[in-house]
């Protein structure tokens, strides 16, 4: 037990929390933007996976981590465009389209991996690049904070900035206002001349950009290779974080960090041979519980309202 506590209260643990939270945060923010626009994005997982794969392959062929990152983001966007084209133009059910997108990415990456690396498991035969680590001057000299916050790969900081940017975009810009209006009442938006499809397409593309970053972090920062299905459900955890966070940026960030802690903890526990499965199940279980509690509250609220509005003269039973 003390071993465990020691591990949790170490700076290296906090450092790893930031590292594992990053991909979850990217996915969650992507999920948030599209969800608020009224297009639930089940395809986050596939978008991230495509990004992770493209980053590794392009960086290996161009010998440039930067071009790898660009390719990762571009492929996230490409996936978003596919999803948007089918769900918005061809009217495929958005859920089924998202599921299809995940299958597409899962199969497509392995198929291509075999072509370029002649391996169906990992890309270690490719000399892919990793993203630069950033040492923050001054901060890195400060005890405790330095080892926690300094020395991460660049995308960890991009994720933090992205959270602020997403918040700003959604709540402080005209485009964000329109996006939220479209998600909540498309007829209202349409009646004042806002193109609902264009706004939703934009939201999906933003979702794709963020997922691309998330994927790049996995394969070019977290580790330095691509492995089949390496996202391992992080896209879904992102959706869970967004749902648990009550569809707000702050809540989404907090839920992502919480899930990040659970993830980091499970890694630690594994090394201490304590069953990590339960901790790994926590994010999902908690989301189901939160969903149920929230839905129950809504039902009760409605019932209470109905009671309040009843006349004082009680119905004679």
């Amino acid at each position: 037990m003390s071993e465990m506590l020691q591990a949790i209260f170490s700076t290296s643990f906090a450092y790893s929390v930031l590292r594992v939270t990053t991909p979850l945060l990217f996915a969650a923010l992507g999920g948030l933007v599209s969800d608020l626009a009224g297009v639930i994005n089940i395809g986050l997982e596939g978008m991230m996976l495509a990004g992770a794969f493209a980053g590794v392959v392009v960086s290996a062929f161009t010998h440039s981590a930067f071009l790898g990152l660009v390719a990762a983001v571009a492929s996230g966007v490409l996936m978003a465009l596919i999803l948007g084209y089918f769900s918005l133009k061809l009217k495929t059910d958005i859920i089924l389209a998202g599921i299809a997108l995940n299958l597409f990415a899962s199969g497509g990456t392995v198929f291509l991996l075999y072509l370029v690396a002649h391996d169906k498991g990992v890309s270690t035969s490719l000399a892919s690049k990793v993203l630069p680590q950033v040492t923050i001057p001054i901060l890195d000299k400060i005890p405790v904070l330095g080892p926690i916050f300094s020395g991460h790969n660049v995308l960890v900081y991009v994720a933090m900035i992205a959270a602020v940017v997403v918040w700003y975009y959604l709540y402080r810009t005209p485009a964000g206002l329109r996006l939220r209006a479209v998600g909540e009442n498309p007829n209202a938006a349409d009646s004042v001349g806002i193109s609902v499809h264009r706004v939703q397409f934009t939201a999906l593309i933003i979702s794709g950009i963020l997922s691309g970053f998330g994927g790049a972090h996995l394969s070019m920062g977290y580790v330095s290779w691509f492995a089949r299905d390496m996202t391992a459900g992080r896209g879904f955890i992102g959706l869970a974080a967004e749902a648990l966070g009550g569809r707000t940026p702050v809540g989404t960030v907090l839920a992502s960090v919480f899930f990040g802690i659970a993830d980091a903890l499970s890694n630690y526990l594994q090394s201490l041979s304590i069953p990590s499965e339960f901790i790994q199940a926590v994010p999902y279980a908690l989301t189901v519980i939160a969903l149920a509690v929230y839905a129950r509250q809504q039902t009760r609220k409605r019932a209470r309202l109905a009671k309040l509005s009843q006349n004082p003269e009680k119905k004679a039973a």
Partner: protein
Amino acid sequence: MDVLLEMKGIEKIYPNGVVANQGVDFSVAPGEIHALVGENGAGKTTLMKILFGLEQPEGGTITYKGKPLHIASPHVAIANGIGMVHQHFMLVPSLSIAENVVLGLEPKRGLSFDWKTAVSQTEELAARYNLPVNPTARVQDIPVGMRQKVEILKALMRGAELLVLDEPTAVLTPQETTELFAALKKLKSQGHTIIFISHKLREVKEISDRVTVMRAGRLIGVTDTATATERDISRMMVGRDVVLHVDKPPTTPGDAVLRVEGVRYVADTGKEVVKGVSFEVRAGEVLGIAGVEGNGQRELVEILTGLRKPSAGRVIAAGKNVTGKDCRAVRQAGVGHIPEDRMTHGVAGLGTIEENLIADRYDSKALNPRFLLSLKSVSELGKKLVKEFDIRTQSPKTPVKMLSGGNIQKVVVAREFSANPKLIVANQPTRGVDVGATEFIHKKLLENCAEGAGVLLISADLNEVMSLSHRLAVMYGGEIVAVFPNADEVTEEELGLYMLGVKRMKLAAGSEAS
């Protein structure tokens, strides 16, 4: 007189063949409040949808400010200074009033949405037009009357000079209506022109300068409000086109099969839409409830049939207290229900005729002789009812949505009547149904009645209620405002006055219509 808007010879035929507007001429002078009145289905809303670019007419021209105008979409209408406040508000509940008002025209500062300017723009607009609102309040937290003001502000924000209000008072409390009227007068004094769609003649008299009356898709007449009485307008609205003749057998009503005692219903908006309604329906009689739609009939029917729970009061159907019980319990008590909207409640469109016919008895012993549903029994029942109720189809296994409106309604009627109900609640039973099917349904309704069922008939169609009912009641503003023990002694004009809220009887509370 100046003319701001002139619509000439407007024709509109919907894809299902309904002729909604037939050579309608409509003109509005600048700076007036012009009431557009008519019964349900008279074509008022269609005409306004054409003006706002939501529907395209098959014929006719629109001249606006002296120039011909082709209104291809609402954006064209908005760009030309035409604004519309729909019956269902187009607002985003979680956003503030200011955000709703400026949506699509957001003020910016740099990249940011300029919240302060949005608030001040809204405040300014609200002050100028005497439509006080709190710009920072969220739409979801404000009452309906306030939401309507937001809708009007939205239209004004977009530079609307001509404002169309589609039944704006339908959802308002009396106080809110007073406030709205004050605001409309203010708008008029500032040079705006308003088209006001309504059923309520008292309001029309109070607010409008001129009235255009429509009936059955045609223009009936235009008159200055000041010179016309409510009676005049009412007569123009409810003229009879076709005289339906039904041989109504004489009746000796039996015991009460439905007793409604002080039923009230308060909607989510806080508005009381059913205000203490009491009446009885006896075996072997048809009680008709006449009234313009939206006066609480729908809520009342849904309460009687288990689709909605009342806020107060009691419902006794066939001797059983079914207050607040679900549809199943109400059906088991012996109540058949022809719902207002057959595609929502009456049938499953993708299901076959057979499947729709057994919906109320799918778990009966007769259809489940052993463990499974007996396809043979289902099919026999289907064939029998298709024949008996003259449902025109190639096969009982045809999906219901392939049938015509009249035949779909016959499927509903066949199911409900074949269950031998003690009470039939029929809400607009022949709306959108062809003449042949209408006659058939009327005949079946009276047959059932003669065999001892009690019938509660709710209809906005005066022909229908008057020719079928033994007794008549009128619902207005959530209340029963008139009762006629002998339906044959009532004239249409008389009924119209009650339906439009011009007159009301003094009825002892609790003993209404019994």
